[in-house]
């Protein structure tokens, strides 16, 4: 493959960013919007061409004997730390990066189109499109990274784009603090990522993914059995790298930024905080998968973090009133699902399992389907907010009559995420659960429970928005469906969510490139379907029409409900640590110490000098007679000393 298309895929969004960022002030909104959409559309077309060439051309660069290869389109030196440790910038094509190219450009294009309607009346339209382009560029750079350091570079860049977009409405203090929080929390996680890279690269002497993952046992051998605090160094490195992923993918306990990130414009939430950037952590684990498999402990760690997060987020999602927050927690929960799925996968055969890499394939599959239906749900939520001018479901209710397109597409999204046949979520979730059950019944059972909760809270949301009881305010301000720019992406994504489950994903994306034939595991599918249907029925009973049942449930478990409503007080804990301990405790103490101890010491030297000078300056009176007297006594003293010495 020539390097023109890949370079264009990266450079076009960057160019659009610079063009709209620098020249945007001089452009009209229309020109900026069309330029942004055209740019992204072109990028999407190019990405499709590249991805399809990769998957279907049968070119020996990409596939040998049915096994898909990792292919570095180009890899140029960017910075050489040492002769061996060199940072390259390149373009790696393999199953997951090709898949991500499709996901990112598709969602990004949908969001570009949608924003044209959604952001129509907002200020800073040009800036908005510039930031979207910057994000697309960074995210594309992240997924095609040939080495872990390139990934880190773009990892930081997506962090900044996310900061800029969350804080897009920068006049609102809440948006400013949300963007700050998102950046600092992920930055803290990135510190772990950086330390992980430092540790890992110290042993491997390379950043390159291909050379690390093609021979992971070598990586282990290179560490030479070094340990630190009881764990092998490689475990530390991999867990630290995963910390970066935990930050970006909002895993417990670094999840706190994601719900707040909903302060950004809704299309941004759909693009960044649902479909693409937040799955970077999953992508990172998938990228380093063979190395993770070498250290069993890190895989267990990933499973545990994922399982706890999935459950936690699902419980919290059941109690939130802000529809975007519900979706945010749902995103956290679903990403955690993918994490567990990756965590149970192995790159070697496990006795009794027909295919131990299934979890990997299923996780990637779910990443793909989730991106589509979660973007759909968010864009749907955007349409609702656009119509009702509130994020709060208590201001909604009974909207199905007023907004049919939004209603149907939202329902499709809900069915997909709940895992109902034949929507896409069913297939990917079924594969994931099958992989988990195969590893250990506990993971399977636990995650089935989470899947049930997912179905419950999504349909709770659905009923509360579209059924329940009509908001009387509709009399004055009748809600209606969004303009075509916004409806079209909804319809497209809904269609994708309906059919994408039938993509033979196992043929395309597996950890080693060898195809895997998907077949639905009947017992697992039956269980998960049953659980989902039961959960939906429960939600129907409770929320279809206004009734006192939810109130009763709430009163039955007041402690749990309040705790879940307050997200189990994580924000308060963080606020206490950052504000009271770090800011007021450490920072203020250090600043005080600097002014009153160190600076005071330096001033003290000056003061002492000054005091001493003042005290002896009386001698310099200008009175010659006094000088003579002093001189006389001095001479006398000298004479006496001399005499004593002589004698």
């Amino acid at each position, binding site marked *: 493959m020539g390097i023109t298309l890949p370079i264009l895929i990266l450079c076009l969004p960057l160019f659009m960013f610079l063009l709209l960022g620098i020249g945007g002030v001089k452009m009209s909104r229309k020109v900026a919007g069309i330029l942004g959409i055209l740019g992204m559309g072109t990028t999407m077309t190019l990405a499709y061409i590249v991805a399809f060439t990769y998957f279907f051309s049968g070119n020996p660069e990409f596939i040998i004997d049915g096994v898909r290869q990792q292919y570095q389109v180009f890899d140029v030196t960017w910075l050489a730390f040492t002769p061996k440790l060199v940072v390259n910038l390149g373009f790696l094509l393999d199953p997951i990066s090709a898949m991500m190219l499709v996901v990112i450009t598709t969602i990004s294009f949908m969001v570009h189109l949608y924003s044209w309607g959604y952001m129509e009346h907002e200020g800073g339209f040009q800036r908005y499109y510039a930031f979207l382009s910057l994000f697309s560029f960074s995210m594309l750079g992240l997924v095609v990274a040939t080495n872990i350091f390139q990934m880190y570079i773009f990892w930081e860049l997506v962090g900044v784009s996310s900061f800029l977009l969350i804080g897009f409405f920068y006049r609102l203090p809440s948006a400013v603090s949300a963007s700050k929080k998102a950046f600092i929390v992920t930055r803290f996680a990135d510190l772990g990522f950086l330390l992980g890279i430092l540790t890992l690269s110290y042993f491997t002497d390379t950043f390159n993914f291909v050379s690390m993952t093609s021979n992971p046992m070598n990586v282990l051998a290179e560490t030479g059995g070094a340990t630190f605090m009881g764990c092998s160094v490689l475990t530390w490195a991999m867990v630290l790298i995963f910390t970066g992923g935990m930050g970006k993918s909002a895993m417990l306990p670094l999840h706190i930024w994601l719900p707040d990130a909903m302060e950004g414009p809704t299309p941004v939430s759909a693009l960044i905080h649902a479909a693409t950037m937040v799955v970077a952590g999953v992508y990172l684990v998938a990228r380093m998968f063979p190395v993770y498999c070498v250290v069993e402990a890190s895989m267990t760690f990933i499973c545990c973090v994922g399982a706890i997060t999935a459950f936690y987020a699902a419980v919290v999602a059941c109690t939130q009133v802000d529809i975007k927050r519900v979706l945010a927690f749902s995103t956290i929960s679903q990403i955690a699902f993918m994490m567990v799925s990756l965590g149970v996968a192995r790159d070697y055969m496990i006795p009794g399992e027909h295919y131990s890499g299934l979890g990997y394939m299923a996780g990637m599959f779910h990443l793909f389907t989730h991106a589509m239906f979660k973007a759909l749900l968010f864009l749907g939520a955007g349409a609702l907010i656009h119509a009702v001018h509130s994020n709060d479901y208590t201001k909604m209710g009974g909207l199905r009559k007023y907004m049919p397109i939004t209603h149907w597409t939202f329902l499709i999204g809900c069915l997909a995420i709940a895992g109902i046949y034949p929507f896409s979520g069913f297939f990917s979730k079924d594969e994931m659960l099958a992989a988990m059950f195969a590893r250990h019944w506990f993971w399977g059972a636990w995650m089935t429970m989470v899947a049930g909760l997912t179905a419950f809270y999504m349909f709770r949301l659905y009923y509360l928005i579209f059924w329940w009881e009509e908001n009387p305010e509709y009399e004055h301000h009748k809600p209606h469906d969004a303009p075509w720019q916004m409806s079209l992406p909804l319809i497209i994504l809904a269609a994708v969510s309906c059919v994408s489950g039938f993509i033979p994903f196992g043929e395309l994306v597996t950890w080693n490139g060898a195809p895997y034939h998907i077949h639905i595991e009947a017992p697992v599918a039956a269980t998960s379907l049953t659980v989902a249907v039961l959960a939906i029925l429960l939600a129907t009973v409770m929320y279809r029409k206004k009734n006192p049942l939810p109130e009763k449930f709430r009163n039955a478990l007041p402690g749990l409900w309040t705790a879940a409503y307050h997200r189990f007080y994580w924000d308060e804990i963080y606020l206490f640590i950052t504000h009271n301990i770090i800011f007021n405790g450490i920072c203020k103490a250090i600043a005080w110490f600097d002014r009153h101890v160190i600076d005071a010491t330096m001033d003290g030297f000056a003061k002492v000098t000054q005091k001493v000078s003042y005290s002896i300056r009386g001698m310099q009176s*200008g*009175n010659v*007679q*006094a000088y003579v007297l002093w001189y*006389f006594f001095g001479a006398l003293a000298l004479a006496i000393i001399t005499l004593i010495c002589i004698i």
Partner: protein
Amino acid sequence: MDLNLLWYLVPSVVMFACGVYGFVTRKNMIAILISLELMLNSADLNFAIFNRFLFPGSMEGMVFTLFAIAIAAAETAIAIAIIINIYRAVGSTNVLESNKMKH
């Protein structure tokens, strides 16, 4: 009575001490000048005495004394000129009052 060195030195020292005392304590510039002359003259006396007793054959001490007397005369003339000028400017020959440059 044998006039040894001590007989000459004691008056010289007394004279010098008087000079020092006067120089330090008197506030009148003329008086200070007189005290200064006393000290100078005691030093001259010492030159002459030491020359006479220690190196009777040579005359350097004597010559130096003459020199010093001549210079002292010149110096006194200048000093008195300055004092007169100060008196004209300040209206007093008190050293404590001629402190305009200090401020």
